[in-house]
């Protein structure tokens, strides 16, 4: 059984517990200590120019305990999950998975309220949870309107030509959302998984 370090306090800028906490709580984070800062990941990244730090620097910042700067970094949000870095990292560090894990933590701890990715993720998860499947129309509408009514309508209209072409091509259906018959079962499974994660976090905080 692995031990879980206490969740670091958000108030300090340099939180040296943070590195240990990431190693132990972020999926794949246990390999992070092997990072030799070679930069292969950032150098291979197709969207590096749209990232404030890139993975290499972000990992250095984790070690330096810069919790706030890490969890508000757009590097974790602009990752397209192309897995270039993962297959090239000489230390077999699951870079993409670590960025995913950081995204989860950032949302849970309230660091990313205005991120488009986070908003999209919220809309997406709503569809999964309620229908067991994702309905693109629902996700898109939910996402657009998360920016507010006016912006939602604007974005919707901007994409109307694409939507109409999709409908015409038979790739966007017009009926009720697709759903899994076992959507209620799936919700029960998700609820249990959430409960397990909560329980583990509480156990971690006690130690």
């Amino acid at each position: 059984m692995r031990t879980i370090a206490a969740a670091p306090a958000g108030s300090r800028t340099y939180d040296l517990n943070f590195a240990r906490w990431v190693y132990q709580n972020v999926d794949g984070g246990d390999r992070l200590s092997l990072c030799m800062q070679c930069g292969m990941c950032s150098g291979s990244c197709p969207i590096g120019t749209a990232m404030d730090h890139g993975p290499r620097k972000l990992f250095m910042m984790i070690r330096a305990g810069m919790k706030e700067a890490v969890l508000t970094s757009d590097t974790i949000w602009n990752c397209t999950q192309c897995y270039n870095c993962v297959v090239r990292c000489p230390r077999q560090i699951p870079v993409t998975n670590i960025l995913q894990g950081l995204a989860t933590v950032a949302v849970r701890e309230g660091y990313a309220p205005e991120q488009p990715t986070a908003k999209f993720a919220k809309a997406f998860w709503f569809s999964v949870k309620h229908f067991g499947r994702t309905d693109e129309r629902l996700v898109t509408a939910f996402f657009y309107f998360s920016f507010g009514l006016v912006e939602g309508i604007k974005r919707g209209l901007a994409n109307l030509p694409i939507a109409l072409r999709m409908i015409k091509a038979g790739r966007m259906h017009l009926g009720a959302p697709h759903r899994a018959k076992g959507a209620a079962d799936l919700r029960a499974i998700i609820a249990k998984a959430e409960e397990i994660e909560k329980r583990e976090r509480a156990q971690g905080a006690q130690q």
Partner: protein
Amino acid sequence: MSEPKKYTYYPGCSSQASATHLDQSLRAVAPKLGIELEEIDDWNCCGASVGHVEGGTLPQTALSGRNLAKARKQGTSDVLTACAACYLNTHGVNEKIKNDVRTRKRVNESLGAVDLNYEGDLNVRHACEVLVNDVGLEKIKGQVKNPLTGLKVAGYVGCQTVRPFAATDTGGNYDTYDQPEFLDNFVKACGAEAVEYDPKTSCCGGSVSVYSPDKTLHLIKKIVQAAVDAGADVIATPCPLCQQNVEMYQSAINKEFGTNFNIPVVFYSQLMAVAFGMDAKKDAALDQNMIKPLKLVEMARKTAG
């Protein structure tokens, strides 16, 4: 023909929406290639590339856990999926359940809420890997009745179909990460010409393109430009999200960069359906491409009726 091999099929959400033409054409060509597809009963979403953000790591993992538990109830056949993201998640979770006791325990505690259980004794495989390793190019060639002679195809593989599993043992070791050859081989097996095409595994921006295309249009531009420069008639891809992004955003790219792109983006399975002499609409689903692959439609017409 030898006995067909049975696979448990996971179509994924895109099969009912943006990538109906992948699902339809794959189901059409499968029996010709000795592949029998039995759909997972009442499958659910795999969580794609964002489920973990709002849902959390374990709930995201449990989504695939349920699909795998349902698949296992139907037998021990390999699970097959044609969607890159579905494969990434389902294969990844399956390997984790196999190899990591803690994950197995936690997933099964979650599944226990509805009396499901899964111990990790299935294999999850990508349709392209199955085509390479189980079916083989010879069998594909053997089905070609309407060779796509003269059709120039840019084979765009994308990321997640090959990364990070194509060159691993559990991923079937079927190709490389940077210069995969399987797609060009499919194209050539269909009698078409695979043009010299460099950005085979360049990134289309994935789901970031769906909600923040402003950040990724230049990536898609590169993918389309190289195909046009190579004189391709169509771009072929195995990935639902690649197909959608590369097709859907051409007009936005034209607006932003003053280009004049209008090149069709099709799935390899649509090429196969036409090459196998099957119906343009019912089997190859060519009516579902937003940018019409006119040359391919014309070729399909040759053998119709």
